[in-house]
């Protein structure tokens, strides 16, 4: 998975064609750490179909807030640089995330 920062966020996400998945997380967030192995497995399983990224919000707070993310874990799908779907922390269920990816890829 690509580690996002304020330096590469625009290029990797907003200026990117196709579907981009971003996991907004932080090492201090226990639920995020609990999910991380599942997220990595999800990215591996779907490698080549979309771009998979994660953003550590601890050092990139402003960037997260600019994306209207003020709580983690949050998963955001972007399509051709536009926000396409958001999973807030209570809605995250890897089956549903996979289904959304399949749907976005059409």
């Amino acid at each position: 998975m690509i580690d996002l920062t304020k330096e590469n966020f625009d290029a990797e996400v907003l200026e990117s064609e196709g579907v981009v998945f971003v996991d907004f997380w932080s090492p201090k967030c226990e639920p995020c750490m609990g999910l991380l192995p599942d997220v990595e497995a999800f990215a591996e399983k779907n490698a080549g179909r979309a771009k998979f990224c994660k953003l550590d919000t601890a050092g990139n707070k402003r960037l997260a807030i600019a994306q209207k993310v003020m709580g983690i874990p949050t998963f955001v799908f972007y399509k051709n640089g536009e926000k396409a779907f958001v999973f807030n922390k209570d809605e995250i269920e890897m089956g549903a995330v996979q289904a959304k990816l399949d749907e976005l890829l059409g």
Partner: protein
Amino acid sequence: MSEVYEILVVGGGPGGLTAGIYGSRARLKTAILEKGRPGGQAASTMEMENYPGFFNESSGPGIMKEFAAHAEKFGTSIIKGTVVDVDLEGPIKTVKTSDGQEYKAHCVILSPGAEPRSLNIKGEGKLRGKGVSYCATCDADFFEELDVVVVGNGDAAIEEAMYLTKFAESVTIIVIHDEGVLDCNKASAEKAFKNKKLNWVWNSVLDEIIGDEIVELVKVKNIKTGEVTDMETNGVFFFVGTVPKTEFLKGKGVEMTEQGYVVVNEMMETNLPGVYGAGDSNAKYLRQVVTAAADGAIAAVAAEKYLAELETFREQVLESPVPVLLAFWAPQIEKSMAAITVLESVVEKTGGKVALAKLDTYRNKKTSANYKVETIPTVILFDKGEVKGRLEGDFTAADVEKLI
């Protein structure tokens, strides 16, 4: 799946992890199913000063890591899985997880825990993850130099509010009670009243959270005057109690309260044989790490006794090479003592062709219940593990001879 666990624990919070420690130290094949990382709610609670022995530089996540390491050291397997379905009524229990796996066990300890309650205030659902939060350790970083509101005044609310003051510019606590009245412990209240970054709004509740894409404003209602005041803020943290995560147990035969808490006795037994409850999902008086741990210990020891009872029963009765008369007796029922004497003399006369097993019904309630023993004495004849006949109440040597 051929593997059958002796103890399978649903949920890896402090209750489940302690059950793991006691189960594996009793050399029982013990596993814990946990959907995320072990530690439960305590793993997201930074400020934790009330677990005995841990008060210097300790934190919820830190203590929970030690719990998990302790359980694993003695042989507990911690398996990742979200439990979606259970079948707990037979002698072998089945637990299913969302990834389609099935786990089997002789005993199940239910410790799924609880989660923060939402109040369903207008705007709360829409702005979750956009300024509305239930987890200070997860989201505090976002509110550096910003203003937040905390709703609630119990231990969690006041302790987490103090944690938030390390990040936020100001933390305003909305308290439903009169000025100076908090539900939290006195030590935390004293500390909180001295904290200059905390502001207090008394006699009030939150009426609405407003924001386009992120939280911008809350409406605070004074319950005495009915007056509603607008307050600009960037975040709202709710700490207003918890609800049990027992949805998957509905309709599965486990007795629960109206609110969904699992009903247990002092041995942590539920109404189903071999099924126990531990931790915050139990109907109980105090929900703390220390009481969850105590529940877990009790549940594991009760499960161990239950397994021993099953084992003895299997060896002496079900797998006996000769027919067995199983006498259900009780030391306080004289009639049952006399019946034992009668049975002993009959069995002796058979010269080893029939064996006698005695079961104290007070110590072995499970087996007695399984065979629907309501009268003491009762004697049941088993051959090759099957019930061949039974006598209840007053019986003579002749009756027993006839039975065999």
